[in-house]
């Protein structure tokens, strides 16, 4: 290494000067340097008018040295070629094979080791060629590096036609074919990128790019600046295709500039990985979409907590809360510790349910299912079973039957017993019925959870559960608050009976949801199931069975329901079309068509089971005023109905940082990037957006 410091300086300089000063006087097809043998090749031995002639510059390098890709990475320089061609001939861009990553200490470069052939198409004009041999000349400069770097250059000339050969040289043909085989895939993939709020990381998404989980994947931008080539990149969970988190470079992309580059997929294959490249164009995801990436973990936890609090007052939770409050009234005389126990077990029930739900969601996500929040309610069977459960609890509250040490199911045991397990089960039930109520804050927080590592996703769900459990848990822990609750008395019976009606209402709502999901036959069967459940409850209430009788009743109900729900479970209980001429069904193609035609477009992502959606439609969208405004401005109103599972819609939701409905998108005329409206709509908000026309 001392040689490096002193003696080598002149040696390097000499080599360098040798290369610089001694390009072959009138040029040759090959230039040799101490590190590289570089040859200019022509695919065809002669030129023809109107032809695209492919030329190639082939680098053969000594071991451990490399030359660079179009973006050399953290350091280095790409080869540069200047062409001197016959009059009228034009050379296109260099075609770069997929590069490899070359680590240099903590830095990373992109380039090629051993050998690479850069091809360039040359357009030959129509009309007669000049007479005599044609001379093609290329001046090339390239940097060749191991750790040290040597700039080299050469002048290359080729004569066409090749003297003495009219057919292509098979070795040349092979090199050209090999070079083309290393090009990125012909079709460019499109996707999106988002810059994190702190401008330190970029999230890249290419939904159309399916990549094996075991493959190593990395992204290289075509230009210096947007991405730091040296930083670690990580695969992110994605509902579809590929998502990568990459460190931002010195000049992170700003505004709506697309990011062009290469996604390189390396699959283990013996000693050398098989490397495939995909040219990608990533469009900027507008900041206005509430991009989930810009939402930090803390903010997401905060939102999730708030969302949980709000869940308490959602219509599908209030009935259960009512039951819980009733439980407190019953227990008010009991001792403090018991109350605390109830509060804690209720909270534990909720938290465990949310965690289980999160774990299930993560598992499903891992298995590649394109699912979102509320997916439980997209299964018609589950909707029917929940309706039965609501009916049973309602009948119990109405006094049709009471539960002793009944084993018929958690739904019944819930309201009757006063043990800690019952409180726990109430928490579980509250969590289950809360899932469809995507409260305003929840969508974004859950969108965040879906795109994050499992630990962060679990934390978000936990925060959601804490927010949800807190009010009731506090009531139990804070005796002073319990004092506010009414004294027990005969009114309690009436109150309990009154509480049955929200549950009947919930059952009715669930059945309405079911009616949107199935055809008439399946719906009828599901309604018959209600009668079976009611009959069983009445039988149980009149002659409380014990032992084998109880087993028989349970078995009979189960068999009856299984038979009845079979058509409901059918894969295509054809969802009734909800779109008509005024409410066109949404599709990405239709949006593109309409925006291309200059029409303003309003997209309503909704589901029958989403109460927020229904309320928004009632108060803001289906109103006379809004309808008139839409008509006045020739707004195309598209409906994306998520009542049943639809992976295309799920992907679209995720793209906008949501994992559930509602989602409202507004495309101004001629604009391809939508504005995202808030999840709680008013006529005023819609009018304001339309004003911007």
């Amino acid at each position: 290494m001392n040689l490096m410091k002193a003696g080598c300086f002149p040696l390097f300089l000499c080599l360098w000067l040798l290369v610089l000063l001694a390009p072959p006087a009138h040029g040759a097809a090959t230039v040799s340097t101490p590190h590289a043998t570089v040859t200019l090749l022509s695919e065809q031995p002669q030129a023809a008018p109107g032809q695209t002639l492919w030329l190639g510059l082939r680098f053969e390098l000594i071991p451990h040295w490399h030359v660079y890709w179009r973006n050399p990475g953290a350091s280095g320089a790409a080869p540069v070629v200047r062409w001197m061609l016959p009059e009228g001939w034009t050379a296109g861009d260099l075609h770069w094979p997929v590069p490899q990553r070359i680590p240099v200490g903590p830095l990373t470069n992109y380039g090629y080791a051993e050998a690479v052939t850069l091809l360039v198409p040359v357009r030959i004009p129509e009309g007669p060629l000049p007479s005599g041999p044609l001379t093609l000349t290329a001046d090339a400069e390239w940097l060749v590096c191991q750790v040290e770097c040597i700039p080299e250059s050469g002048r290359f000339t080729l004569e066409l036609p090749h003297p003495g050969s009219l057919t292509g040289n098979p070795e040349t043909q092979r090199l050209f074919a090999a070079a083309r085989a290393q090009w990125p895939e012909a079709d460019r993939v499109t996707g999106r990128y988002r810059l994190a709020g702190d401008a330190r990381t970029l999230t890249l998404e290419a939904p159309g790019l399916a990549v094996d989980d075991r493959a190593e994947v990395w992204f290289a931008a075509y230009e210096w600046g947007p991405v730091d080539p040296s930083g670690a990149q990580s695969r992110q969970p994605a509902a579809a295709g590929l998502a990568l988190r990459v460190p931002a470079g010195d000049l992170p992309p700003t505004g709506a500039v697309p990011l062009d580059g290469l996604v390189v997929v390396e699959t283990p294959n013996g000693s050398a990985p098989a490397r495939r490249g995909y040219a990608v164009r990533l469009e900027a995801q507008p900041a206005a979409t509430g991009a989930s990436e810009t939402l930090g973990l803390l903010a997401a936890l905060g939102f999730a907590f708030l969302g949980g609090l709000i869940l308490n007052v959602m219509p599908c939770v209030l009935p259960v809360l009512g039951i819980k409050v009733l439980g407190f009234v019953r227990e008010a005389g009991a001792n403090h510790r018991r109350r605390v126990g109830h509060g804690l077990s209720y909270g534990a029930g909720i938290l465990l349910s949310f965690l289980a739900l999160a774990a299930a969601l993560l598992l499903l996500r891992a298995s590649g299912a394109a699912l979102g929040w509320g997916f439980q309610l997209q299964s018609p069977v589950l909707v029917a079973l929940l309706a039965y459960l609501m009916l049973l609890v309602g009948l119990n509250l109405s006094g049709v039957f009471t539960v002793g040490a009944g084993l018929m199911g958690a739904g019944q045991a819930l309201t009757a017993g006063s043990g800690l397990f019952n409180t726990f089960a109430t928490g579980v039930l509250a969590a289950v019925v809360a899932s469809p109520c995507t409260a305003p804050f929840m969508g974004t927080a859950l969108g965040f959870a879906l795109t994050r590592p499992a630990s962060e996703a679990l934390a978000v769900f936990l925060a959601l559960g804490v927010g949800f459990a807190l009010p009731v848990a506090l009531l139990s822990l804070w005796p002073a608050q319990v004092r506010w609750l009414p004294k027990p008395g005969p009114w309690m019976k009436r109150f309990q009976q009154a509480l049955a009606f929200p549950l009947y209402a919930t059952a009715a709502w669930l059945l309405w949801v079911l009616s949107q999901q199935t055809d008439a036959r399946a719906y009828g069967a599901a309604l018959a199931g209600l009668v079976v459940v009611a009959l069983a409850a009445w039988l149980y209430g009149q002659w409380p069975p014990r032992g084998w009788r109880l087993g028989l009743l349970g078995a009979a109900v189960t068999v009856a329901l299984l038979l009845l729900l079979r058509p409901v479970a059918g894969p295509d209980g054809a969802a009734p079309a909800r779109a008509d001429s005024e409410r066109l069904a949404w599709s990405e193609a239709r949006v593109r068509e309409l925006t291309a035609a200059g029409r303003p477009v309003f997209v309503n992502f909704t589901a029958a089971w989403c109460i927020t959606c229904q309320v928004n439609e009632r108060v803001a969208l289906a109103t006379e005023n809004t309808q008139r405004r839409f008509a006045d401005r020739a707004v195309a109103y598209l409906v994306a109905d998520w009542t049943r599972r639809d992976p295309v819609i799920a992907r679209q939701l995720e793209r906008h940082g949501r994992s559930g409905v509602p989602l409202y998108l507004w495309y101004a005329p001629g604009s391809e990037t939508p504005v995202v409206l808030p999840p709680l709509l008013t006529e005023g908000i819609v009018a304001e957006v339309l004003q911007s026309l």
Partner: protein
Amino acid sequence: MLQSFLRFVLIAFVLHAGSAVAAPRVGEPAPDFTGVDTQGKTHQLADYRGKAVVLEWTNHDCPYVRKHYGAGNLQEQQREAAAQGVIWLSVISSAPGQQGHVSPAEADELTRSRKAAPHAVLLDPEGRIGRAYGAKTTPHMYIIDEAGKLVYMGGIDSLATADPADIPKATQYVRVALKERAAGQPISAPVTRPYGCSVKY
């Protein structure tokens, strides 16, 4: 109530992000450092508060560094900077055994033989300063203003070649930035592509 909660969340988030260790950003405080020069003298960035500081990563065997020293470009800019009262620190982050690693005496000899005029040459064989600044190439240039804020990072000029003949044709980013600062104007190109050999950490 909701608003103040959101503000709290936002502030917490910003504080959280600020504590992360990362490459510097133009417009943010430049990472402080302590480095020893060829004379054994210690230089701390904070000592130069009130003066503009230029950091130049260098490696005398790198062809791109030789392009600029060979043509006298860097020496000229070092003298101009000194005349403006700007502190110019050359930093050598080559690890022992790597290209460009020099002893203090060799570094001084290089300064003498190349007629260079930096305020000091800092020896950073462990790459501490280099990593703090995310220095990637030789040359890689940084300008820190009087308040300790990073105002420029990137290349020495705009033509990423090893050919000295390109120097007169190129925009000399550091010279332009120092001029613009002296004139009280915003720096027109605060972040550019650094080009050259990799820093030999």
